[in-house]
């Protein structure tokens, strides 16, 4: 046991070093290509150039403005999509006629790839922020409906029986039994909604380059063949996605702390 621990401790720095090997090699290769020029020299930028682009975007305030706009679209869409999804999913789970009417529509509409709605929504609502928020909402809406529905439907009959035994009203049954037992599923849905909302935000911004978000900055960078700017944006997008995921995971761990810790 202690021997295993010691070998683990000794192995840790080595492991980290091993993990950094490949990314480092790639960066070096990349840097080398950028400096010494190869066939695609124009397409490679040195690490220094990327750092320069970051400084440039930061100092002009563009990065912060664009980042703020993207986050606003993402959270606006996430909010509306989750709230409507929660409402629709609950209605479907609790009222059978609603379930019958909406299930075929939901599954029908869900077949269309998300961004496939863009041209249609663009024609109806223009290519401004409204259209963007609608598409992002839609991306958050699908998982919210699905996981709300499954969570509320999945409550165990034996748990409902306890409510029956103590003569709970329908409202008390919902609030004290159905809802908490659906929570794990709801958080899974939220995790997906967040991820999809962020992807959709970048997608719409790339496609509708009106307004000024991270996607727009990337698009401009691409048109000007400024790979350094594109790389900076990709890093920001990736880190943000990572951070939001972490946040939701923390939140759900806190809300679901009554669950046994799984190893």
């Amino acid at each position, binding site marked *: 046991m202690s021997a295993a621990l010691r070998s683990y401790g000794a192995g840790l720095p080595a492991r980290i070093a091993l993990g950094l090997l490949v990314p480092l090699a790639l960066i070096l290769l990349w840097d080398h290509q950028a400096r010494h020029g190869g066939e695609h020299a124009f397409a490679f930028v040195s690490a220094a150039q990327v750092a320069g682009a970051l400084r440039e975007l930061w100092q002009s305030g563009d990065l912060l403005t664009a980042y703020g706009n993207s986050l606003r679209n993402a959270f606006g869409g996430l909010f509306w999509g989750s709230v409507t999804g929660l409402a629709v999913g609950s209605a479907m789970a609790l009222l059978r006629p609603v379930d019958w009417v909406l299930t075929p529509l939901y599954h029908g509409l869900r077949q269309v790839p998300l961004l496939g709605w863009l041209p249609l929504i663009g024609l109806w609502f223009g290519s401004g922020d409204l259209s963007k928020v609608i598409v992002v909402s839609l991306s958050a809406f699908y998982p919210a409906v699905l996981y709300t529905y499954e969570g509320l439907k999945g409550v165990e009959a034996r748990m409902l029986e306890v409510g029956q035994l103590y003569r709970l009203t329908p409202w*008390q049954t919902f609030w004290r039994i159905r809802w908490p*037992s659906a929570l794990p599923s709801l958080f899974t849905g939220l995790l997906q909604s967040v991820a999809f909302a962020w992807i959709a935000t970048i997608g719409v911004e790339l496609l509708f380059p009106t307004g000024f978000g991270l996607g727009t900055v990337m698009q401009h960078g691409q048109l000007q063949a400024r790979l350094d700017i594109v790389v900076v944006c990709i890093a920001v997008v990736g880190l943000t996605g990572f951070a939001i995921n972490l946040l939701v995971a923390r939140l759900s761990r806190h809300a679901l702390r*009554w*669950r046994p810790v799984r190893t």
Partner: protein
Amino acid sequence: MNIDSRAVVRTPEQPALRSGALQLKEVRKRFLFDQRELTVLTGLNLDVHPGEFLSIVGPSGCGKSTLLRLIAGLDDDYEGHIALDGSRVAGTSLERGLVFQDHRLFPWMTLEQNVAFALIRRDMSAAARDRLVREHIALVGLSGFEQAYPHQLSGGMSQRAAIARALVNEPKVLLLDEPFGALDALTRVHLQTELQRIWMSQGSTMIMITHDVDEALYLGDRVAVMQAHPGRIAHIVDVDLPHPRDRAAPLLHRLKDDILAELTATDAPRSEAVVPLTRRRSG
């Protein structure tokens, strides 16, 4: 019948008595299964006396659990008559508590919240509620664990918590559906002693279903022996011993031999014929 005298012997410290009399007359329960009608219980007559501890034993599939669900009011669809203190049982009621074999504590509530759950429909001040909850947690010996979540409790502790939840309403009748069936042998013996103590101090009528003849005899004033296909009460054994009891009492052993002989002799051939192979061993 000398039941009244026995009740006096059992609990000299209890008030003279009160309600909790359960009456079953010609109860019959049929299920529709695969278009076929299945009679689970038939011609069932039973008088449970106020404050009595009645054990029910029987082979699997004899309808014990169904009977308990009917009394609890979880299932309303039966023929015949079930009445508590003269009024017909319809739906669930806070007067009839039930402890399930699986504790059925809500995983998202602390022990305290789980016990308080039974009081949601009771009109009382928060202070009175807290006091009741605290008292009943103490009654089952779980003081100090009020804030624990079910996953932090052992199987025995969870079952104690479930008993506290069922008793916190001070029901006239407490129904126990194989409450210790899922516990290991040592915990089981321990909880049987505890249940006896609780029953003696509480004084509500208790009806317990079990597979375990020792358990049934140790706790019961009477033991009803059921038979299967269709489910019915074969006969009722009086256990003429005062509480608290000694497990080693010769009477208990003699009665156990009698009951086991009866269960194996009359039931085995029938269940061989009807119960599928896979389910036979669990009996």
